[in-house]
């Protein structure tokens, strides 16, 4: 059941290069960590998919990286303005895990604060988290996940992976997800793909899953390799988009090590 509601902006604060957009929650449900919402982007034709970052009784908050016209318009929203939210949508993280470890890269941090809170609520305290960023400036966003271990490029977040086995729940740029998939085959990974609708209507968000093109908005965005959900096994040719992407487009090769469909 697709739900779309009008929300008032409670505030918008910069955190490093990102903006934390806080919306009055109204009677909207936050859904499960890793699920996403389609946010009406002022002046644009299509809405933009965003993971829920934080949920309180009063607010829903999104962490947004202004990389293009839609995200920039969202970051410029001011207190008191209103926008429509569609969601929660898709499949989130499976919380029934033994030894959770959250892994985030860049804006891939976005869904982790909510995830961390929910896991803590499940009774085992705040799970450990490791985060990688491109610069000190970007790393300011780590404030949203206190106690996380942080590294800055040229060190990659995979260098912080502990030796003991963990249930990895991760979101970040494609090369990070690709590396994690090799290092931790059971990891739950949150992927991206451009989305027009977010609820299965357009077939625009397909990625190749186990040899088939599947809608990431319906079958994802969180996928587990070899798990119930599968994971993109052979992303399709995609020429590099923007220089500043810090989160992984699924179904795209870019200059990653992934094999490319002819």
């Amino acid at each position, binding site marked *: 059941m697709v739900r779309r509601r009008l929300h008032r902006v409670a505030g918008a604060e910069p955190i490093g290069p990102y903006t934390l957009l806080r919306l009055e929650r109204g009677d909207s449900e936050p859904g499960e960590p890793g699920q996403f919402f389609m946010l009406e982007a002022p002046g644009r034709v*299509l809405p933009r998919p965003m993971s829920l970052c934080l949920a309180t009784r009063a607010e829903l908050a999104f962490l947004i990286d202004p990389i293009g016209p839609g995200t920039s318009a969202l970051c410029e929203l001011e207190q008191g303005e209103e926008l*429509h939210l569609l969601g929660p949508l898709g499949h989130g993280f499976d919380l029934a895990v033994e030894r959770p470890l959250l892994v985030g890269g860049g804006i891939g941090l976005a869904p982790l604060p909510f995830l961390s809170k929910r896991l803590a609520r499940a009774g085992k305290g705040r799970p450990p988290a490791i985060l990688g960023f491109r610069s000190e400036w970007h790393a300011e966003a780590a404030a949203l996940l206190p106690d996380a271990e942080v590294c800055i490029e040229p060190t990659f977040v995979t260098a912080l992976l502990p030796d003991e086995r963990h249930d990895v729940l991760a979101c970040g740029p494609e090369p990070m997800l690709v590396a994690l998939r090799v290092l931790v085959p059971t990891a739950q990974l949150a992927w991206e793909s*451009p989305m027009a609708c977010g609820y299965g*209507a*357009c*077939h625009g968000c*397909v990625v190749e899953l186990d040899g088939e093109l599947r809608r990431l908005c319906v079958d994802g965005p969180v996928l587990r390799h070899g798990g119930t959900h599968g994971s993109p096994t052979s992303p*399709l040719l995609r*020429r590099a988009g923007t220089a500043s992407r810090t989160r992984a487009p699924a179904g795209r090769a870019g200059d990653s090590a992934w094999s490319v469909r002819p």
Partner: protein
Amino acid sequence: MLLNASGCLDALSAPEVARSLDGYVTKTITPEPREGNPPVRIAETRAGMLNSIGLANPGRERFLAQTLPRLRDLELPIWVSVGGFSVGEYAETCAALDGEDGIAAIELNLSCPNVDEAPEGAIEIVAACREATDLPLYAKLSPATWNMAEHARAVEFAGADGLSLVNTLRGLALDRNLRPTLGTGGGGYSGPALKPVALAAVYACANAVELPIVGMGGVRTGLDALELIAAGASSVALGTLLFTEPEAPARIRVELAAEAAARNLAHPLAARRMALGSSPESVVRIGNEFRK
């Protein structure tokens, strides 16, 4: 009558959206299953969007065996959009649909900009499908033709019962590296930018033929819908708008009624052909096409 535009709603993923319409139009079905085009498949432009879905569909057999029975559970009139790469392919699918329950009409997609092979000629396809089925046949035309009116007359002559206007235009968007954003290069251009083009196409065809017309292209408001009706449409379909606003049908209905009332019209359909300025006797009789 308010419909979705083909390819802009999956009734099985969002049945409540389908139920807010007066009928559900399927994504175009081809004889063989099609994976569709490689990603990236969508891009936004300033006043519209591009898509290169590429007729991804389960193919005729799986559609009939698996999809159609589940669609019937919606208890909605079902319009099946039919595509193909030869006259025979279209006609075979029409024949296969002919015996099926619950199908209100067939929409012949004669105009998909995402398949390279151009249809062999709309007229032959319509004529062959006419032979193959007694179901109402709607010909869906592209606005990318010099003479819409001639096109409309030709498919009417070939036996079409109605027109669906319009399909997308061909468009291209480039990314920052000046490479096509879509995996296929160009794609179909839809959304608000298309509205004046859709209005012109409906207007030209309504001037040429008296067939019922499903108008679509860039509808965002009840006034947009009313304008399509004034230009000659008897039904209106929502496409790109549904991506942004799945609950749009209810809003459009309210606005459509209000815009009609503001013009002292008893019913939105009373606006039909008002833009044409034809004398009353040349206005075609309006069927009971609006359920609600």
